[in-house]
């Protein structure tokens, strides 16, 4: 009897407990949408915003920008005392001695593949994107795939309809180019036509931007075709013809050269801008300026990025001075000896000193003594003159990438802090590049008049016309027109110059064709057996 009673109590207790609390352990949609796998996006308009927000990473000074510029003759970052040692990351890129685990190589692989996937998710039919949203997604997917192909030679593609655990297929060479071209054709069809000068609308894909990118891909197609199989190759005439017609189609929308060169790199309207991203330009401005080059908005530069004297010497002008009015060509910019009066167009005077903020900081290439707003000669942090030198030398005066002082190296600045130190307006595609692509297509296919095309640009930039354009001159022109805009590596590879010796490149790295591609990140090789390490790594 008693036993039964006990049993009853226990059963009651357990069932009360059980009823009130047994749970299926399912989580609730309290602050996020939950799906058992990708089932389509909740809101495609929002996802398009997010996709473009991702692309704004193009303002970064590291990662893809470093791969495109620091691995070339255009930029280097010496180690200045303790500064900028940064685990050797900058030095190794310029020396072509990068290893298998550089963060600046791994991150772009992750990032641009992520952008590619974000676009694919918008394009997944279950997401139900509008045709306009889809066109944006095609454009960004093409840009992302092209970036990966250009740097790594292998593009993994994820089918959003398959489970997340599915291993992505990998496309290389011609097959990868075909995918990119197909996306660009869809983008050109669906994107809006935005006329030149309507710059505010060009932070998203336009027909002109998609045509520009298609021209870029076609111009490089022969390089991509043979990327993993020894390189070489010659451009197909049909591709060159299409480059020319794509550039002509861009020009037909009113895109044209802008007379005032440095005016292009502002957030105002101009006829050259084809595509800009909402990326802060602060990295581009401050990464090379010295700590004591300041504005009320910014406590000074970061004193890192510099260029080689040999790059500077491509420009016309006195090799030892770039002071304002010393006879240099417009594109080389100048070093002012003092600021300009407050009230100058586009400037502010937050500190009320009567001088436009940041107007003592020059344009283009900064060489020699730098000056404060009132014309005083600036000093470095040790109290010595702030005078940027052409050469990179260590304490013993020997050329060196490490053990430099604060003032070695010519600094490069294309966006000027007087127009805002962190303006979110970073130029990605512009018409001068399109025109240079046209000249190159004409030169490579022997059609049209490449010399006339390039002289169209040279005339606007105020330099003497060229007699008979050759490849070397074309590369040099691209170097002078497009410096630090993210094209140098791509150009040098296409012109066969990327493997040549330049100052501080590693002794054994000259002519090392392994360096034409970056290594596939090691964890990716483990995660995706369809990827194979690039030749030589």
């Amino acid at each position, binding site marked *: 009897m008693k036993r039964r009673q*006990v049993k009853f*109590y*226990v059963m009651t*207790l357990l069932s009360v*407990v059980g009823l*009130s*609390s047994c*749970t299926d352990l*399912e*989580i609730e949609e*309290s*602050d*996020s949408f*939950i*799906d*058992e*796998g990708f089932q389509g996006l*909740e*809101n495609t*308009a929002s*996802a398009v*915003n*997010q996709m*473009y927000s991702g692309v704004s990473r193009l303002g970064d000074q590291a990662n893809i920008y470093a791969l495109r510029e620091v691995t070339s003759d255009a930029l280097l970052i010496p*180690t200045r*005392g*303790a*500064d900028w*040692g*940064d*685990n*050797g990351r900058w*030095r190794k890129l310029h020396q072509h001695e990068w290893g298998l685990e550089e*963060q600046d190589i791994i991150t772009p692989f*992750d990032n641009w593949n*992520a952008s*590619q*996937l*974000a676009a694919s998710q918008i394009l997944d039919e279950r997401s139900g994107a509008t045709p306009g949203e889809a066109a944006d997604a095609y454009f960004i997917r093409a840009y992302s795939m092209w970036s990966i192909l250009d740097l790594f030679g292998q593009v*993994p593609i*994820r089918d959003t309809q398959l489970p*997340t655990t599915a291993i992505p297929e990998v496309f290389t060479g011609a097959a990868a180019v075909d995918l990119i071209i197909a996306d660009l054709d869809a983008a050109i069809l669906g994107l809006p036509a935005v006329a030149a000068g309507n710059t505010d609308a060009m932070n998203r894909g336009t027909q002109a931007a998609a045509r520009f990118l298609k021209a870029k891909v076609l111009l490089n197609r022969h390089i991509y075709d043979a990327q993993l199989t020894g390189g070489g190759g010659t451009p197909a005439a049909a591709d060159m013809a299409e480059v020319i017609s794509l550039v002509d189609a861009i020009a037909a929308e009113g895109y044209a050269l802008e007379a005032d060169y440095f005016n292009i790199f502002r957030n105002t309207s101009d006829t050259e801008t084809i595509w800009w991203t909402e990326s*802060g330009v*602060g990295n581009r401005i401050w990464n090379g300026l010295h*700590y*004591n080059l300041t504005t*009320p908005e*910014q*406590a000074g530069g970061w004193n890192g990025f510099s260029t080689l004297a040999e790059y500077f010497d491509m420009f016309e002008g006195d090799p030892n001075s770039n002071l304002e009015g010393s006879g240099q060509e417009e594109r080389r910019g100048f070093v002012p000896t003092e600021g300009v009066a407050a009230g100058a167009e586009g400037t502010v005077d937050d500190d009320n000193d009567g001088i436009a903020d940041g107007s003592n900081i020059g344009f283009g290439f900064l060489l020699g003594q730098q000056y404060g707003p009132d014309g005083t000669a600036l000093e470095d*942090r*040790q*109290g010595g003159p702030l005078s940027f030198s052409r050469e990179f030398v260590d*304490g013993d005066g020997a050329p060196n990438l490490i053990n430099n002082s*604060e003032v070695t190296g010519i600094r490069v600045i294309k966006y000027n802090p007087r127009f805002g130190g*962190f303006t*979110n307006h970073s130029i990605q595609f512009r018409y001068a590049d399109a025109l240079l692509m046209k000249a190159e297509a004409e030169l490579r296919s022997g059609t049209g008049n490449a010399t006339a095309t390039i002289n169209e640009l040279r005339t606007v930039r105020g330099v003497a016309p060229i007699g008979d354009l050759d490849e070397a001159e074309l590369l040099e022109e691209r170097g002078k027109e497009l410096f630090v805009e993210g094209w140098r590596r791509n150009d040098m590879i296409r012109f066969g110059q990327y493997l040549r010796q330049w100052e501080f490149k590693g002794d054994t790295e000259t002519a090392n064709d392994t360096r034409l591609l970056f290594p596939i990140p090691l*964890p990716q090789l*483990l*995660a*995706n057996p369809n990827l194979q390490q690039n030749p030589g790594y």
Partner: protein
Amino acid sequence: MCFGVAKAQTVSGTVSDSNGPLPGASVVIKGTSNGTQTDFDGNYTLNNVTDGSVMVFSYIGYATQEVSYTGQTTLDVTLQEDAQALDEVVIIGYGQTTVKDATGSVASVTSEDFNGGVIASPEQLIQGKTAGVNIAQNSGEPGAGISVNIRGANSVRANNNPLFVVDGVPLFGQNTDATGTSGRDNDATSATGNPLNFLNPNDIESISILKDASATAIYGSRGANGVVIITTKTGKAGSGGVFEFSSNLSISSHNRQFELLKPNQFLDAITASGGNAANVDFGGGTDWQEVIFRTTTSTTQNLAYSQNYGSGNIRATLGYQKQFGVIEKSDFERISGRVNWNQRFLDDKLKLGIQGTLSRTNRSQPPLQGNAGFAGDILGAAYSANPTIPNNPNIDPGGGLLNPRNYLDGAQNITNTNRALINASLEYEFTPELSAKVNLGYDKSDSENVSVLSSNIINIDGVSNVGAGTFNTLERENQLLEATVNYRKEFENSNLDVLVGYAYQDFRNFGFNSAARGFNTTDLNGMGGALTSTVNAAQNAISGSFQQFYYAPNRDDLTVNRLFPNAETTNQDINFARGVQALVFDNFDNTDELQSFFGRINYTLSNKYIFTATMRADGSSRFGPENQYGYFPSGAFAWQIGEEDFIGDGFSTLKLRLSGGITGNQDGLGFGQFVARQRYSQINLGTIQNGVTIDNENGLAIIATDQPDLRWEETTDFNIGIDFGFNNDRLSGSIDFYRRDTQDILLQTPPAAPSTNPFQFGNVDASVINQGVEFALNYDFIQSEDTTFGASFNIAYNENEINDFAGSINLGPVNGPGLTGAFAQRFEAGVPLFSYYMAIFDGFDGDGNPTYVDIDGNGVGDPDADKTFVDEDGLPDITTGLNLNFSHKNWDVNVFLAGQFGFSVYNNTANALFNAGQLNTSRNITVDALNAGENPSASTAVSTRFLESGDFVRLQNASIGYNVPLSGDGTLKSLRLSVTGQNLFLITDYSGIDPEVTVNTGQLNQAALPSRGIDWTSFPNPRTITFGLNATF
């Protein structure tokens, strides 16, 4: 006729203890069932007591007294508290046992053995007291977190802290404090608060540490890192109630400083290194260490009232603690109240227990930042600031550097946290064998952080001339329902004890993060007020549910991102006062659940052979249906060899313990990592350097991708231990050997690209093995009536190794000028966790440039290409403690020394700041760095040059107490005065401030592995002298 027959009489009297009458004490005639209990006033009356019989007076926690009855009518007895008896009871999971019967590796520390002095949180009470339990106070910041590692570090990404259980309620493992970044940096790493800050250490009766799987497996998936069970004090003595009052006054100071160059030395050094001294001479002379450090006075007051009234007892306490850190603007305040009430009903068959704590902690933090870059945080700025700069907040040091005075004056970071932990248990005894218990727990914390940097601050991008602030809240709510049934049966030669139970616990986290730029005031409280009122007004202005909102001067409207019912972005007019120019706000709210079934069987045979088996099935909402439940069994056997006949009287105790089991871990794994989830991506003002615009439209993003295979981390654990005692345990000790193997390590690894996120959680094919030995020894040298002297010593050796991992992950970011992306440690198979991986420094060459050993054999020693494992790691191999207790009459002295050996500290501070090159940037360095023979233009890279042995011995605690003799007739029943010193000296070769350090130096990559042993301007542990007074009345 009646000759020789004893005469039965009636006896009455009072049973009391040192505090007064003792209700509920039992009085029994030995060998009979004749007995009674004392009443509310401690009085008893017992009939039929015969001459010569023995009366037994007993009460839990007191030494039992036996008195031979000699015919008196009144017999008063005073019972003595029995420390020995209390020691023997060990609280284990869902029950208690005694040291004698324990099969697992369990250590218990009770209040009389706790560390003294300024104690902010309970772990400090037992620091160094127990072998194999490494409690490291990584920062001297008041209220900062403490890391507790039991038997090494098992897990990598997941938390290595043990599960804390307070009065039966398992707490959530994560921090409860909202943290702020002031908008200076997105992942700024200020020390998070200790989640146990809410408990008043004065309320704690005992702390049990469950070390091996046989003890912890009853906590299943949360037992892998050990379990710490905290039991609070209950009212146990004294009718009419006893008041206890204690008051402490503490004086703290920093005991080690860097020897930095004085102004004239600094200017000479600038000249010597080729600089222009006149141009960097600001004309002043400031010892910046003196500016930010201070000597402080802290106080603690506690008042407790306890009463035992026979059928129950109650204890209520009020505590107040205000502790000031040795760096300006660091303080910690706690106001706590606690009630413990136990009541017995129905002939003691029904027991009700209610425990509740309410507390408020207020924390102020100086601008410290573990991932600070070249300019350093407030400490880095102070160590490196040009000493000729006057102590004036308006001076710009130039070169993008910070003025410490200016930075200190312009920063404020305040966290207020309320927490309530309440639990109620009801236990009913159906029969003497069978009882059942229901336990309900509720734990709620509600924390708010307001952190601001004024626009007056010089040289912080996005803050100078703008002003920045963050206002974040974090609320956590944890509910527990637990039911257990217990069956105990004594057989002729054996005992059986069976426990089965069910538990359900849910954990809700909610709150928001907000950040602002652009303030109209530089008054720090005014800035905080403007921020909080604007956030509140904006929230009120929005109808319906939302995830985010934001506005900025370059936008016309308030933009609101909504998730439910439909994902949409809406814009509305701003019709509230904009106290800040730009504001972003983001909500979060999620709940995880845990459901468990568990059981334990204890079987004791012949009092010699003890068997224990436990099993727990844990179901967690953090895993998908496939792996939702984890099963965690354990078994143990103990053999009281000392009870065997073949062991002579040489041993008073000899016991062998064997155990094995599986425990789990799911900590560190966030909410919903096994499904695909979409949510608006984070909007950051901080990435936009001029701070008052928002340009990029953020949108819905996939924040987690489905990972159906995600499962538990599992630790398999084996333990062999021997407990021994000689001479009635005057010499006693134990030795334990263990091996723990953690499999299916939860790590964030890169999924195959293209993927939404570059890293996601997964179980990697890797294991972490910890094996080691623990040894503890106690000896009572002197045991006389007036004088006692005892020593206890413990030492533990632990060896840690990663196995079977195909790959390598870098960790341990090193920060400072020219050290972006630099790191010091690597995770790879074949080496211990937190192994150092770097170039080997080979001295300076003739020019004073550093040289490195050539590892790759290319003929050049390069600090980047020639990195290697240097056979050092950040985890101590040996931890040890020595406790000495001496008492003579009313005086007592306690000394406690702690030591750690076999680990290295990476001196990030020296790497970043104390090298000749810093003179180039007109920053101060140490005298040692100046004399090291280094070329001022030499580059500095991570290398063994800055890796130092961390071995140390610390005089952690020393106290002298005096119990004032009292007549006992007055109101005052006892009075004790004491002086305690903490951290009185440190013996170490480490050149930094303190080798017992772990600064969270941020994330090197999104794998985000934590690191250990990196010292980047850590908050020094202070030296503290405390004067204490304890009184009962």
